[in-house]
């Protein structure tokens, strides 16, 4: 596969390490009332669609950026690639 890195352009997927569902960006608040329940869900439930999937890849043999890749799990077509750090910031993790 080829991942179109937002900075570096098209790169072979073998340079990357896969993590999985991008919901792993949404780490719960440890002080929430139901923190344990939230962490159980965060830790173990995965979106697993046959279709578009937002997922985390790490450019280990590249610029070491974590990326959020939107990829179709049936066709493997990649439609969007973002820097995970930007996604995390947009998602309100800047604190």
């Amino acid at each position, binding site marked *: 596969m080829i991942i179109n890195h937002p900075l570096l352009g098209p790169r072979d997927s073998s340079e990357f390490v896969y993590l999985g569902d991008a919901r792993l960006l949404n780490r719960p608040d440890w002080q929430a009332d139901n923190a344990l329940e939230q*962490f159980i869900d965060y830790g173990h439930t995965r979106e697993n669609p046959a279709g578009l999937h937002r997922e985390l890849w790490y450019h280990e043999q590249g610029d070491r950026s974590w990326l959020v890749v939107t990829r179709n799990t049936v066709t493997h077509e990649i439609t969007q690639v973002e820097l995970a750090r930007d996604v995390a910031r947009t998602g309100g993790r800047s604190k």
Partner: protein
Amino acid sequence: MSLQNRLDGGLIDRSETWSFRFDNKYYKGHKGDTLASALLANGVRLMGRSFKYHRPRGPMTTGSEEPNAIVELREGARKEPNTRATTIELYDGLRANSQNRWPSLNFDAMAVNDLLSNFFAAGFYYKTFMWPAAFWEKVYEPIIRRAAGLGSLSLQDDPDGYDKGFLHCDLLIIGGGPAGLAAALTAGESGARVVLCDEDFLVGGRLNLETYEVGGMAGAAWAAETVARLQALPNVRVMPRTTVIGAFDHGIYGAVERVSDHLAVPEDGKPRQILWRITSKRALLCAGAIERPIVFENNDRPGIMQASALRAYANRWATTPAQQVAIFTNNDDGHRTAYDLVAKGVKVVSVIDTRTDAPTSSEYDVIAGGVIDQTWGRLGLSQIEVKMPKGGTRRIKCGALGVSGGWNPNVHLTCHQGGRPTWNNALAAFVPSGTLPPGMTVAGAANGIFSTHGALQSGADGAKAILADLAIKASAPALPEAEDTPVKITPFWHVKTAKRAWVDQQNDVTAKDIKLAHQENYVSVEHLKRYTTLGMATDQGKTSNTAGLAIMAEVAGKAIPEVGTTMFRPPYTPTAMGVYAGRAWGMEMRPTRLTPSHKWAEEQGAVFTEAGLWLRAQWYPKPGETHWRQSCDREVIQTRKSVGICDVTSLGKIDVQGADAAAFLNTVYCNGFAKLPVGKVRYGLMLREDGIVMDDGTAARLAENHFVVTTTTAKAVEVYRHLEFVRQCLCPDKDVHLISTTDAWAQFSVAGPNSRKLLEKIVDDGVNLSNEAFPFMACAEITICGGLRARLFRISFSGELAYEIAVPTRYGDALVRRLMQAGAEFDVVPYGLEALNVMRIEKGHVTGNELNGTTTALNLGMGRMVSKAKDSIGSTLSERPGLNEPDALKLVGLRPVNKDHMVPAGAHLMSKGTKVDAVHGQGYVTSACYSPNLGCHIALGFLKSGDTRIGETIRLVSPLMGVDHEVEVVSPNFFDPEGERLRA
């Protein structure tokens, strides 16, 4: 020299005559021959035996679709079983042997199977061989296994090398026939970056096999001229002998270039083959088509082949299997073969055309509306019987029969990403569908466009469309004129018979087998394939699948497309396993990482061991030591007595800087780091988010905003990745900077009561190593040996007064030599991993054996380290009840009640007096060693409620090794439990 069946002309180089051997007999051939063509020229038709019935077989094709003529090529370590004689490029001195026969190809005792074929119908083995149960492995299966299989491996290591390579292009053209050449010319002359791959050693595809003219010259000549034109273009790479084996995601193709297979031995330093990973923006499939047979009784004798193969042998290789040939066809193309053979002086005794309206000819006899219902000839065709259109039969003597059942476009690569071809009634064939791999288009015969003109035109048009898509301006060359014969075919699949008519020749699947599969309800095309083994042979069903589907459709009363198609999967043709591995084998399978003291350690005669990719000294034998334990015990004793040195460079080192560095470490370690003073080191336990321990190590605070974190050797890469995840994804706006410095610093442990004295000899003036100035867990950046920058950490894995000292890696070799020199007065010893392991077990320190991915801080006896006062990775999920059971496993020390007993790692722990089984298991041993200090074997292990069972005698069992004895549960801290030595 004139050979029996050598004709005039052809594309062979008669100036080079070569000798080769097949089954102990020597023959002559020419440059440009294949093994099959050369054998045919020598009058040899019999080249192999079939898989199941051991039927005599000769070549059916001229290409990689060959099911029958497969041989063992070469001898010794270079032997290649199952090699198609039709694709073996002849070289001087070639040796090949027939396979899957005993004792000889002409007389094969296993052909008795042929007589018993009624008992070996499709799926017979699923219905028998079940009684008695034990007989399967002992009796039935060994017989079956010996009989099965085709060629044999040499069992010797492959002596040749393979490479992997990477190419990038705008357009990959697969196949160098008329469509591919026209496309390459169009795209190449427009300036696009083109890679053209062709599996043949002579690029040109069917242009080299036919007699039609292209642009007023012989097709082969036009092909040669065009190839030369392309090779002159710097932006075009023409790759003969290169098979595109798979279409992978996003325009990536795998291709195998056979660099040296046409040579007896590869040239020095050169690979046998190269696996190219081609990253293309677009691909144009111009893979041509394969002629398919008609199925009839005994249609498998040597001499019976594709009609197109018959004329290819005559036109390109100037040979024929026999001087008298017949043709059996259901379409006009069969007649082309007859014309070409007549032109070559071969006697065409008859053309049997299934169509009543077949064209007639003045050159040869045509039987319109006839079919072949029987053949004769034990080791090669001698006679056929034709069922005449108006009744009755006619026998015709002939030594070869060309069969043409129409052409199948080569759609394989179009299916590699799940696409299925669609049925085209006019062509009576499957053609590529709309669901092609993204970026791929198809031209020429592969797309069902069979005339030369059509192929040229569609290749050029395909290239133009791609150029437009890539915004490259096309400067298209004019296309040469060529024949534009329409396809005329009336589908005809098989001549009905109660006897055997072969569909899959290699696997001996007959039309009867397909009917039986239907009768037993194996009707799905995949069931048919798997039950009968149709299409599962080394030719991957290239010549058999369509006929098989057609026969299934007929018995099921369905149309062919309703029966379906089978999936084509990579590789396109069978591919040497070695080429996928490339250079990654033997000691070079993975890189080797060497420590800075490696050269010195080698000089000391150290024994090395793998630690991940690293090689580390395991022990340093001294003269007279014959067993590793002697060396290890000595190293341990001497280190504890005086001082020892160990290279610990392989532990991961990560530089963590930034205003938020301390807060960041507070997040990734379960214990606190915010308040660690500058100049101090702290042990840190890192959890996974699920609460299980990921790794442990230390973090040294060199400055307010600067830490050096260490990891275990095994987890260095994983921990670094995890830290980047936390940094970028979980706290994107913290000021934290990470970079690995593992290789930058040579780091040595200097351990033992004299370590301070030793180091004092090399540190520069002003560096105070006293216990007060530089206490346990201190760290500092210092200089040594007259000004070399170094880092010093007072940390101890051994439990001794110990330091780790780091210098820039290039000075590591000099430093270890200096330390040894300076330590001579203390009888300093180097120690290896074994001694390190003994000392850490004696101290109850954990490593990978304990941090095995299932253990928690609680299990390790470090439950209280998980701070509840802050958020850290894993702290919340570590609170789940299953990880906090009252009888949770706890790390304990174990020592044998009988001092002579071993306590092997991997043993299980049992309470005394209970049954020895899994249900009563109490835990297991993780690490074990002989402790020279305690004078017995000791071990660490996890025991249920272990921390409350100190002093209890329990049972240690290792039934795998026949061990069962009593051990005492003790503190894991066997040695110096108060830690007086390391704080000294």
